[in-house]
């Protein structure tokens, strides 16, 4: 019994430790701006800026990349992806660009990309981005060829939806770009940002003792790369709670009007980010504060953003921006916290040997296992990242890891079912098959690169794979008698 309690306590602390590590300064500094960027993209970028390139008469070499761009810029949550996908498909742009959009949107979700980059590594995030874009376009083309439609729906459809012109207001665009700059300054590890430019001591006593207390409260294993909770981390967690509280009061009813809490919440976020970007050195008699390059960059961005929020954005833009950001935070963050905690517990239960046997090498089987796990396990948005990190620390190769990270947000039973109501069961399941195939391929390619294969070779593999697939389908389609071509008749 005593042994069981001991193990249970260990697991519990594992969960807590994981949570603390994920709320550490560097994660906050990336995730918080990422939520605001997601909110800005949803609220400030008019969909028409990109969808106008998706009309029937736009040449394919524009509409496919535009569909991919749309996936990256226009849709952060599935509630936007699905309606846009339905519209693009139904209104005549065709299955191809619509599928490209459907594939790219969850795969290069800005929140997931930044989180992956911070927690696991920029190389993985970049690979996820590039391969998702390439495969998104590929899968769109393939689906368009397989289901070469000759039906009347295309002719009936109007181009009205795609003819709308609207550009983004200049101040809104600048605002979004500075948000991105804030994110970059807060997370890039270059010397300019890491150098200490100003150093001073605050006469606060007892910070070192507090630090020791925190380390005893939440033990961590430095050998495994865990960080534990620092003084700064504890203060940040407190600030996060305050932000949550003030945001609830100030943003939840923002359509009724702004109130004091709206400004308090936004200011708190600014203060938290600035505080997270400096270095603290706890000591017995004082608290050492180091103002590093990152701090000045973050502070400057915050000041400009605050000014723009009040003066340059319209009231509608400000309201929509804050609301969408808050909506994402509400939807994602609580589940993320619970997820991270549970992952920390589960990590204690899984033996590394199991993972290493299944996916320790960059094999076809290993990548496929990653994909199967991603397809059949449904996790709330962003939770797939701490899970991936757990697998990584248990010995999974980075190739299968990428395969998992791409396939997990793509497919859940729910999203497959909804997609099926829009394009039909046959097309939906064919799509699932291709997603599985491409995720495996992406993992294999990236894994090969990690293992040392030259980049040029990888690009050649990628290009030849896509060319072969497209060629095969062209040929197959061409040599079938007209009335036997795989066509729209397959719709339910």
């Amino acid at each position, binding site marked *: 019994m005593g042994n069981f309690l001991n193990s249970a306590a260990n697991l519990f602390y594992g969960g807590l430790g994981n949570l603390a590590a994920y709320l550490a300064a560097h994660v906050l500094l990336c995730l918080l701006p990422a939520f605001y960027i997601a909110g800005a993209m949803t*609220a400030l970028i008019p*969909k*028409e800026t990109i*969808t106008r390139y998706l009309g029937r008469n736009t040449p394919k070499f524009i509409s496919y990349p535009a569909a991919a761009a749309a996936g990256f810029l*226009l849709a952060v*949550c599935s*509630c*936007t992806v*699905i*309606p*846009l996908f*339905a*519209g693009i498909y*139904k*209104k005549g742009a065709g299955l191809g660009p619509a599928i490209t959009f459907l594939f790219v949107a969850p795969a290069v979700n800005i929140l997931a990309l930044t989180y992956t980059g911070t927690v696991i590594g920029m190389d993985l995030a970049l690979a996820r981005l590039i391969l998702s874009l390439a495969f998104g376009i590929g899968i769109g083309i393939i689906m368009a060829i397989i289901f070469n439609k000759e039906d009347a729906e295309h002719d009936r459809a109007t181009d*009205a*939806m795609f003819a709308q012109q609207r550009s983004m207001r200049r101040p809104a665009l600048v605002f979004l770009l500075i948000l991105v700059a804030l994110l970059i300054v807060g997370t890039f590890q270059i010397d300019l940002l890491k150098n200490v430019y100003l150093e001073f001591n605050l006469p606060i006593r007892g910070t070192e003792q507090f630090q020791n207390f925190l380390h005893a409260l939440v033990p961590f294993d430095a050998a495994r790369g865990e960080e534990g909770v620092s003084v700064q981390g504890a203060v940040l967690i407190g600030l996060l709670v305050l932000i949550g509280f003030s945001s609830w009061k100030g943003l939840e009813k923002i*359509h*009724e*009007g702004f109130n004091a809490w709206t400004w308090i919440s936004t200011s708190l976020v600014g203060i938290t980010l600035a505080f997270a970007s400096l270095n603290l050195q706890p000591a017995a008699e004082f608290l050492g504060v180091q103002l590093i390059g990152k701090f000045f960059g973050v502070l400057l961005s915050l000041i400009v953003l605050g000014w723009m929020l009040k003066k340059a954005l319209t009231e*509608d833009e400000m*309201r*929509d921006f804050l*609301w969408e950001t808050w*909506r994402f935070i*509400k*939807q994602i963050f609580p589940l993320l916290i619970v997820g991270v905690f549970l992952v920390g517990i589960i990590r204690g239960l899984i033996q590394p040997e199991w993972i290493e046997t299944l996916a320790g090498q960059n094999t076809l089987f290993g990548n496929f296992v990653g994909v199967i796990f991603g397809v059949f396990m449904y996790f709330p948005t962003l939770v797939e990242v701490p899970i991936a990190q757990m697998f990584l620390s248990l010995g999974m190769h980075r190739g299968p890891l990428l395969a998992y990270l791409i396939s997990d947000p793509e497919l859940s039973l729910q999203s497959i079912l*909804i997609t099926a*109501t*829009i394009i039909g069961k046959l097309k939906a399941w064919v799509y699932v098959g291709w997603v599985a195939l491409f995720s495996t391929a992406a993992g294999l390619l990236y894994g090969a690169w990690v293992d040392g294969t030259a980049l040029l070779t990888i690009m050649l593999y990628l290009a030849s794979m896509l060319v072969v697939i497209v060629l095969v389908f062209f040929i197959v389609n061409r040599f079938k008698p007209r009335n036997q071509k795989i066509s729209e008749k397959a719709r339910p």
Partner: protein
Amino acid sequence: MQIKILGSGCANCKRLEQITRKVVDALGIEAEFEKVTDYQKIVEYEILSTPGLVINEKVAASGRIPSETEIQAWVEEAYKAN
């Protein structure tokens, strides 16, 4: 007055309906609410993203939640037009 909320169950759609009901009740106007969740039907209204607010078959807003003030103005206008 016929008010349709276009969208399938996402948080924004629910919030839009909630706010619109509040505005309509406060104005004391009688309105019939309909929630359209079928994508085939939603797409007919030519909106790019949900939620959509349709008053007497005219699309008032889409892709965002308008403020109470805006919704009030639209509802009043639609009421007067009848």
